């Protein structure tokens, strides 16, 4: 089965084709066609995973392009990383698609939604399974396209269209870096095959490796919404919630992390690149968490949370915690998808309202949603025994060993994480309902939406155990690179993270659950500068605008240069020709004798020249 792993991306792509061509004819059944294909794909992935767990591996490839002397192939490589990823991607996508049948019911472009979701899933699977940069890049770009199309699903509202464009353009910036990085790798290795590149990276000059790594990381920064290219993810919440759950929480944004993991030997060959990765990750985690504390929109809060958790993964990769980071990637996929789908459930119940300040007390009305949401929230905060604890803990322990200050940054972030998610939970589900109308009409979700929630909650609750010390750290062992050691179990480090997380949760709960609003208002007044900083997202949007301004200024200069200097030069030549022409015009008098005189003069000059050139004289 492992050698047939290429079926896994083909099935969703096939579904995409069917849904695009026959969607109109199939009607509502279109969604189930896609789900059927995806279920089959999931089954195949699980089979592959089972085999890889037993030690199997596979690599298949077909020749694709022949350009000049180089041949590029299309191929699939299946190892532990790939097997785990495709299992996760297909499974979570399946959950989200089933959920979407209920969530998107009644949407005018129901079929288009499912078709593009399947396109996306296919592309993501291509990225995971690709055995060379070219194929990976192709899938990468198609993912970007699908993301754009899905964010702008309700494009009649111009704001959604703009959000989609923003996401596409910002990730594009990263993609340019990735593309140049691919060129550098090709220069250095002579091929785009990962097997060759990974094997040979150690022998590259450190400068080359650093350059390639940083460029590839640029692509990851874009796709995984790290600082400073993170500005698109909160705006991407304009898309339907299942899209947010799938693409902007579990899969596409994880592709950046996956990319770094995939090209890890290149990063290892360059000392500085990994340090950059770690710092970027840590800073992102912290910044995003702080901004998440002041969000009113439930989806935006989760968006910043995603950015923050992705920062954790990058941090893990940067401090040589390869297996830890990937473990966190997997567990994050489950609980973040759960959280998003849960928020979707709430939004669905609240008839489209997303402002948490207008919610409250929904637990009584949406018990199932609320319960699963709490499970996800605790996982996110890293409270044992839920999934997030084990994976985040692993990352932080690796940081403790290698870069102590990053550990403290991560631990502080854990505290803030606990705070904002507790805040979110309390505002949404507990306390007195703030909007009576909303409260009255709220109802629990239909089964087609509820079942995925429950399934994901189970994973969020128990997945972590697979990586815990007591069960032999199966996940890490499975994913680890050869020779990678597990971090030492510094219990005081682990204890401080749990303490900070718990403190955060308690603080959030108290502040938003028990305390009176006046207290919160008072705190905001006291901490006003901090509050504003968070609310303005650390002024990154302003920075981006400034950067755009710079770009516009540069292009204005270039435009001026082109018009004045370049065109001026050309015009000057033409003008000069005109001047010459006008001057020569004076010769065309129309008087034959004048012409004769000119000719005679020319003969005179010619004769003089001839004779002056050394003709022998008597």
């Amino acid at each position, binding site marked *: 089965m492992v050698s047939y792993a290429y079926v896994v991306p083909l099935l969703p792509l096939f579904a995409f084709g069917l849904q695009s061509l026959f969607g109109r004819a199939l009607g509502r059944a279109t969604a189930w066609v896609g789900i059927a294909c995806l279920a089959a794909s999931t089954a195949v992935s699980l089979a592959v995973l089972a085999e890889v767990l037993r030690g199997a591996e596979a690599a298949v490839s077909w020749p694709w392009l022949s350009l000049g002397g180089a041949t590029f192939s299309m191929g699939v490589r299946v190892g532990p990383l790939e097997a785990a990823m495709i299992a996760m991607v297909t499974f979570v996508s399946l959950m989200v698609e089933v959920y979407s049948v209920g969530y998107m019911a009644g949407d005018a472009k129901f079929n288009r939604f499912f078709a593009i979701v399947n396109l996306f899933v296919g592309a993501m699977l291509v990225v995971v399974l690709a055995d060379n940069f070219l194929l990976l890049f192709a899938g990468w770009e198609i993912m970007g396209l699908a993301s754009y199309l899905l964010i702008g699903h309700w494009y009649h509202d111009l704001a959604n269209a703009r959000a989609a464009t923003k996401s596409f353009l910002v990730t594009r910036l990263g993609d340019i870096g990735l593309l140049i990085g691919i060129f550098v790798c090709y220069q250095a290795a002579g091929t785009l095959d990962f097997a060759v590149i990974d094997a040979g990276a150690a022998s590259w000059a450190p400068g080359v490796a650093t350059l390639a790594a940083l460029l590839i990381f640029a692509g990851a920064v874009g796709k995984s919404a790290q600082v400073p290219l993170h500005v698109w993810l909160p705006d991407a919440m304009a898309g339907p919630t299942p899209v947010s759950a799938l693409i902007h929480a579990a899969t596409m944004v994880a592709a950046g992390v996956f990319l770094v993991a995939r090209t890890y030997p290149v990063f290892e060959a360059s000392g500085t690149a990994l340090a950059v990765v770690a710092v970027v990750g840590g800073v992102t985690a912290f910044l995003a968490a702080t901004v998440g504390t002041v969000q009113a929109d439930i989806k935006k809060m989760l968006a910043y949370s995603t950015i923050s958790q992705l920062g954790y993964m990058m941090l893990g990769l940067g401090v040589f915690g390869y297996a830890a980071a990937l473990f966190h990637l997997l567990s994050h996929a489950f609980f973040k998808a759960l959280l998003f789908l849960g928020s979707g459930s709430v939004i669905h119940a609240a008839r489209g309202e997303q402002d948490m300040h207008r919610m409250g007390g929904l637990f009584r009305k949406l018990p199932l949603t609320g319960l699963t949401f709490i499970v996800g929230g605790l996982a996110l905060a890293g409270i044992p025994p839920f999934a997030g604890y084990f994976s985040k803990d692993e990352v932080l322990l690796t940081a403790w060993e290698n870069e102590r200050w990053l550990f403290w940054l991560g631990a502080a972030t854990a505290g803030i994480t606990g705070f904002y998610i507790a805040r979110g939970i309390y505002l949404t589900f507990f306390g007195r309902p703030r909007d009576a109308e909303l409260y009255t009409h709220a109802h629990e979700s239909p089964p087609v939406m509820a079942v995925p929630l429950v399934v994901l909650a189970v994973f969020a609750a128990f997945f972590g155990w697979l990586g815990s010390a007591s069960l032999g750290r199966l996940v890490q062992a499975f994913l680890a690179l050869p020779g990678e050691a597990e971090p030492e179990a510094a219990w005081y480090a682990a204890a401080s993270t749990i303490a900070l997380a718990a403190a955060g949760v308690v603080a959030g709960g108290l502040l938003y659950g028990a305390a009176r609003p006046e207290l919160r208002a008072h705190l905001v007044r006291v901490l006003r500068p901090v509050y504003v900083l968070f609310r303005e997202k650390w002024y990154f949007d302003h920075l981006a605008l400034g950067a755009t301004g710079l770009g516009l200024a540069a292009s204005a200069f270039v435009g001026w240069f082109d018009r004045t200097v370049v065109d001026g030069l050309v015009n000057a030549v033409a003008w000069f020709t005109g001047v010459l022409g006008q001057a020569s015009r004076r010769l065309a008098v129309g008087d034959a*004798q004048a012409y004769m*005189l000119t000719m*005679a003069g020319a003969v*005179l000059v010619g*004769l003089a020249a001839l*004779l002056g050139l050394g*003709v*022998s*004289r*008597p």
Partner: protein
Amino acid sequence: MSWAWVGFAVLTGAAVFSALRVVLSPSITHAALHLAIVLVAVAGYFLLLQSEFLAVVQVLVYVGAVMTVIIFAIMLSDLPLIRGGAGLRAGLGSERFGWLPLLVACGVGALVLVGYGSVVWTAAPLAFQESLPMLADTTGQGTTGLIGRALFTSYLVPFEVASLLLLAALVGAIVLTRREVAVRVRELPKPVDLRAVARTGRGPAGPKAGDEADAERASAGGEA
């Protein structure tokens, strides 16, 4: 001093004096006549150079034809005497372009003379070629035979081209100077009225059967 030098001196004097009169004379007819003298002088030079054919051709064509044409043109152009020029007396500032023509002409002349250098000014100049390179069947025919032979062998193509050129010049000159001839448009025959023909049973008015017979008899008679 041989007769050659005397002849040469006379010819040169006449040629140069007349050439100057040609270009400096205020009267166009005077200029034309002096040109004729120059042309004859050149024929004389040709004789001195023992090129008898060219001398004769020069007189026949240049003096006989070209000068005639020039004089015809002068007379037919029916212009008042040339204006504005008083020849030598008016100094060199009148006519056209001030002193430039003199300058240019003298310059060209001087430079050409300089250019003749080794040919003309050396102590051992070129010698006169007494004998012509005779071909077998042209002995005794002088330059005439030589030129004739050359024109019909080595220079045949230029010869034919020159005749074409003369034809073109001939046609061109005639076409250019033809006076416009008014062309009378002949009357077109009246259109036939077929209904009238059908009604009356007679063809269009034209030569009747009788006329045709008369014409035949007339021509038959003429022939006999």
